[in-house]
């Protein structure tokens, strides 16, 4: 279980990007986080594995407080947190197998990592997972020879190789075409069931969010203003999540009412 309490993130001395955020994710739920660009979705996700350092607040994953861990402790905690990225973030010049095995780097002895001497059980697990998502035949190909959808599957397998306790996905489908995008969402949902994983997905496509996730969290300028089952996301809720501009939110600028889009 993931429990976030009073999370604040401020870059420099400006306005906080996350303003006193509270969020609880139970086991085995697929949660999507929606909101306009700049709402703080990505920052929220990155605070969990501390790719972004939270300013204050608490994040507890299965009983471990993450915000106070030292470097070694943080590395240990990160091994349990899988992450999938919008740009896939693979190492292009390495093979698919090396990319997949890099999910094990946290636990792999250094000499094995350098010599590419992966343990048998890791290789077996990699083949099983690659078979499961349909990329096993690419094991010896270089990552940059694959298409977008295939590359994201490599990214997903890399995260699963960690045997994570939670999976974070930062706009995993934003660089993909609609069809592939749906396949990846389907895959994430199926894998969440199979491995009983809680999954947190930042997403812009609300149709996909409704179709493939169990719960939708709506963010607006650093606050959670919607948190309910997908059915509850109606027109009115969408307007609340997506209206306004960051400047208006800070009270710096009042938009000309004549520019407002008439509610259809």
């Amino acid at each position, binding site marked *: 279980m993931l429990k976030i309490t009073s999370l604040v993130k401020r870059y420099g001395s400006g306005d906080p990007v996350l303003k006193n955020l509270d969020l609880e994710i139970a086991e085995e739920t697929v949660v999507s986080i929606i909101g306009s660009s700049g709402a703080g979705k990505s920052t929220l996700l990155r605070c969990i594995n501390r*790719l972004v350092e939270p300013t204050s607040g608490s994040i507890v994953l299965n009983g471990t407080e993450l915000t106070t861990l030292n470097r070694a402790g943080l590395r*240990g*905690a*990160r091994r349990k947190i899988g992450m999938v990225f919008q740009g896939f973030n693979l*190492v292009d010049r390495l093979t698919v197998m*090396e990319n997949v095995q*890099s999910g094990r*780097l*946290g636990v792999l002895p250094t000499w094995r*990592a350098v010599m590419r001497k992966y343990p048998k059980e890791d290789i077996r697990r990699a083949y099983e997972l690659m078979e499961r998502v349909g990329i096993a035949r690419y094991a010896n190909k270089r990552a940059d020879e694959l298409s977008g959808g295939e590359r994201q599957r490599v990214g997903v397998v890399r995260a699963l190789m960690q045997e994570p306790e939670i999976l974070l996905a930062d706009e995993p489908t934003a660089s993909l075409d609609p069809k592939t995008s749906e396949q990846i969402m389907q895959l994430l949902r199926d894998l969440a069931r199979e491995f009983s994983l809680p999954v947190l997905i930042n997403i812009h496509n609300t149709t996909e969010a409704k179709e493939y996730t169990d719960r939708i969290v709506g963010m607006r300028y650093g606050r959670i203003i919607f948190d309910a089952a997908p059915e509850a996301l109606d027109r009115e809720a969408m307007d609340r999540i997506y209206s306004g501009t960051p400047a208006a939110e800070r009270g710096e600028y009042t938009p000309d009412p004549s520019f407002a889009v008439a509610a259809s």
Partner: protein
Amino acid sequence: MTEQIFDHWARFTPAQRVMRYSVFLLCIVVIYWALTSIEVIWEWVWGSPQQIADLFGRMMPPDPSNLGKILVVLWETVNIATIATAVAVVISLPVAYMAAQNTTPNVATLWLGRFILVSSRSINTIIWALLFVAIFGPGVIAGVVAIMFRSIGFVGKLLGEAIEEIDNRPVEALEATGASRFKVIVYAIVPQVMPTFWAVSILRWDINLRESTVLGLVGAGGIGIILQGAIDTFNWPEVATILLVIIALVILGEVVSAWLRKRIL
């Protein structure tokens, strides 16, 4: 707000334009001043075609009687370049790592790395060679060390820049798996700078081949020593042979490095 359509656009404001013309004029003045301030003995310049013809006449035909000895020192020259490049490339790896802003452990190592690069690069190979001939005495060792010292800066600088230009996203992804710093370097940074590493190493070997031919002029081994000897004794036919051999070597080096580049990259 009132509607207004503009039909005038200029890339620079009048003030900017005046500034640009002034700088242009200043450049011309500086070049003119530089040209008039150097002392040229024009008679010697006009007499040069005659001198070229005279020297060429004395070099013809090249004298191959010493060719065996020339080829031996030529081989020595190739060895100086190759050994020095190999050692320099290995040493430049940690230096590049320290001098790149995104990998250096702290500010002190950053400046240490940059200091090594700058001091290595700002001193010409021949000057390094003069220094090491004084330390090691004349011979091959001085040449190897001189070329090495100059090459560390060159390879380290270009490699450090390649490290700074890598795509940081895979690095972030591997940090998110809980991998140690060293493993992140091996998996996310090394593969990205590999092509640059090979390209720069081959280029530097090519340059070192040419530089090692003149090392002998200051006594640091290689073919330059007999070249100097031949010039000192006015043995122009042998000078011609040596120059031809050097040209052949440089062309061969060019061919080999082009082939390597094609094979590796």
